[in-house]
């Protein structure tokens, strides 16, 4: 691990957030958590992140809307995003590609896959 990245995990499911934190911390990254899309936006305003890993289906503000928000902000426009989803709906893929979010992690994912996707997304 050459350098540690600052990664934000957004998911309404506590267990999945904890899993991602444990795996990525083990990989040497710093991890922040948000339980809702709105909490995530507040954290992103206050801090800068190298990567956002977000669930798509969330109450109130879903993952797609969250990333749309990021893309409108000059400061966060280029932040890479990994979507975690249980859905295999092709429409979601199309929409996420439009948001320049090519990285997908299908539930239930393995820890190796998570690390692999994070490495890919960070471009290292």
């Amino acid at each position: 691990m050459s350098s540690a990245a600052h990664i934000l995990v957004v998911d309404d499911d506590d267990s999945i957030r904890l899993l991602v934190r444990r795996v990525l911390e083990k990989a040497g990254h710093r991890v922040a958590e948000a339980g809702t899309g709105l909490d995530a936006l507040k954290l992103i305003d206050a801090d800068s992140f190298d990567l956002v890993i977000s669930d798509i289906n969330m109450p109130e503000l879903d993952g797609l809307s969250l990333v749309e928000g990021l893309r409108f902000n000059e400061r966060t426009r280029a932040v890479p995003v990994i979507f975690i989803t249980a859905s295999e709906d092709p429409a979601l893929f199309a929409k996420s590609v439009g948001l320049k979010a090519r990285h997908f992690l299908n539930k239930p994912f393995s820890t190796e896959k998570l690390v692999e996707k994070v490495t890919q997304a960070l471009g290292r």
Partner: protein
Amino acid sequence: MSANGHRIRISLRLKLLVLIGALLLGTMAGYLFLALRLITQDRLAYAFDLNQRVAAMLSIQVQDSLESTEERLRLFGELAVGRSDAEIERLARQLLASDVDLLRVSFFLREGPLMTARCRVVDEQRLVPLEISAAELDGLDRTRPLPLASLGSEPVVVLNRSLPPSALIISLVVGQRVGPGEQPAWVVALDAVPTRVLDAFAGGSTYVAYLVDASGTVLAHPDRAKMLGAVRLTDEPPVQAALAGGGITSGVLEHAAGDRRLLSAWARVGHGRLIAVASIDRAAALAAAERLVRLSALVGVAMVLAALLISIFAARAVTGPLRRLSAATAALAAGDYLVDPKVRSGDEIGELAQDFKRMARELRDAQVKLLQSEKLATFGQLGAGITHEIKNPLSAIRGFAQLALRGRDPAQVQESLEIIEKETQRCLEIVQNFLRFARQDKGERVRVEVNALVQDGLKIVAHQLAISGVKLTVELGDAPAVSVAANQIHQVMLNLLLNAAQATGRGGVIVVRTGVRDGRAEITVSDNGPGIPADVLPRIFEPFFTTKEAGKGTGLGLSVSYGIVRDHGGELVAESTPGAGATFRVLLPLAA
């Protein structure tokens, strides 16, 4: 639809009763009519017969009495001819002594064309109770002379020579037996009290009998006044019939007597010179028959009443099962598929009841199958949601299992295993929620709080709504208990919620409320979708009616939901303001 929709105007029981009553009354009336006719005819025949026998019997008595007296008088006459007056008087006293009823004996001898009295012997003692004197008796020969000169070849004449007010006297005149055209040489006349004859004609309680001579004059009659007055009864129809009868010696007839009708018989007596008549009052003759008929009618009416009473029970035995069957039909229409008409009779109605029961069971089976298939259709709509929902705990389980496998730190391994256990439990709950709903249930009604019922139902569909991007708000109010098949009510809720989610789409809001309205439990599902057009609203509960594109719905969801709620004795109502969403109300009767 309901049993009240078709009112029974004239019950089958009443019809049966009227039929049985009419049959009974008809039979009874026919029987009474025939019985009355037969009995009347029989009684009339009997009365005529009795009359004839009475008349004949009286004739024989009169005849016997007449003949024996005639013989004695003839013997006296023959003995007296040629004797001295003293000897004749001695013979006459002997004759008087032979019978207490005899009053006087007179003996006449022919002297040329005239009959001369040779001897008159009176027993004066016997005149005392009659309150007459010997002189008065002698006076009779002047006032009512004996037909001494006109005696024919059969010289026997009977006369009523009563002396009012109290002396009943019958005179018998007997002459010497001679050839045709000759006149007897002697004549004996006897005056007597007709005690024995009167006894014979005293009459019974039912008949009247009397004796008249050839002129119709009374010789013996139970009416003492008629005898004392020597009344002529030529106006009496039987006397007229006898007098007009010529050679006929007896007859019967029915005739009026004042306001009564008499049945009479007559007979010629004493060489045809006397007439015996016996009469019976027709009403008296038929009194027994009338009593019998009256009794029969009374017994008949009692029997008809008893038969009607019995037939009320009999009719009940017939119509009771029909009534129960009718009630069972109403119960079936109201959704009670397990209804038992409770008809055990071995007849056609019993068979019908069994068929009815079988039909109800088959209907229930069909209903259960329909419910199940519609439920599976609903379940299919949930399928994606289930998969999705279960992937979250599965992800956690998989990840933490991997972490635990590679873990060095016991505390971290412990944490991983704890999370795995918790998430496994979550999987189990998700699966159980769906399985409970998917399971084929028997529709048994269970008492349950409405709020618990609604929350259990929401568990099944909440995630589906969440991933559909629909916001679900739940407002639980006063929560009374209802008695329902929970699974079926969940099916209704799911149907309404999924419909609402489809109507609103992503970003929509669904509000579920519970409460009480008009004494019933209420569950409302409101959405802020486009609402239901006014022309569609009345049709939404029709089977196979759908506005969704082909393949997106069976068109049975709301129809089945409507059926389920109605089966629970409740009501499913839809309200909508186009453009402002729709509200569905499930109203259920409170549990007892």
